[in-house]
């Protein structure tokens, strides 16, 4: 799978669906933690590992702590081609 915004969105929404935490109306500015998807620390680690598995790298392992899907997509957009 590529690191295009659409593919990254699919990975994140599939993950949130699997753990039954996909908020209604989820979008690129919905918070991933409090007042949004409400991911806890272990679920965040699972998301990090899932992103690495699917896309080859992930923002969390690079020291970033994205707050939204949009910030995750921005991480991949900034990677060198």
């Amino acid at each position, binding site marked *: 799978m590529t690191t295009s915004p659409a593919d990254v969105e699919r990975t994140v929404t599939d993950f949130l669906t699997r753990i039954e935490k996909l908020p209604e109306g989820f979008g690129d500015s919905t918070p991933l933690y409090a007042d949004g998807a409400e991911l806890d620390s*272990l679920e965040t*680690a*699972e998301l*990090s*590992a*899932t992103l*690495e*598995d699917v896309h080859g790298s992930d923002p969390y392992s690079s020291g970033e702590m994205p707050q939204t899907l949009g910030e995750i997509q921005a991480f991949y957009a900034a990677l060198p081609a």
Partner: protein
Amino acid sequence: MTAAATPTGPRVVVVTGGSRGLGAGIVQAYLDAGDIVATCARSITAEVEAWQSDPETADRFLFGTADLARSADAEVFVKAVIEKWGRIDVLINNAGVARDGILGLFSDDDIDTVVDLNIKGTIYMSRLVSRRMLAKGSGSIVNISSIVGLSGYRGLAVYSASKAALDGLTRALARELGSRGITVNSIASGYLRTEMSHGLDEGQLKQIERRTPAGRLGYPEDIARVCQFLTDPAGSYLTGQVIVVDGGLTS
């Protein structure tokens, strides 16, 4: 609620420090059981060459040269396993080193050598592999500690501390990962007939043998059998424990 279903087929097993001694015994046990095994060490040995060339094992064995005291080496090794087989089902943190001597005479280098490999190396590997297990929602980790981490031993203060640290890691990780179907246990090994018998001389080993209810020192196979038990997929309710395997010495 019932116990988790037991998956069938070969598992992908990572054994650190599997090129000789206890680690080689553990690698052999998993290969004999039909599993896929990856191991790493700082140098290749005759045992590794045999597994690489044996038609029975060559296709399901991987060796990587790595010094696990270095985070980057651990990462390269784990990536190689994932690239080849796509997952890791079992991690046996066996790699370790002993330096003996009275603590008051220990050098900084010896302290670093023991702490960097025994504690930091185990943590690096557990971090990398537990991420993979989290993504998969299952897995088993076994840390090979030692009875000296429980009882102490004169001249092995740093080694004893490093092994006690692994037992703490085991309990904490078991709590952290238990809800995701990942078990974490320690084996507190007694004294083994391996080349790394903690720098003990033959006289000391004979004395230990006399005090051991089983009447002998342990063999790698004794520990490998317990690894198999602790990583049996049907054993998902056994986690966070330190299993003493010492022929009854500390009972």
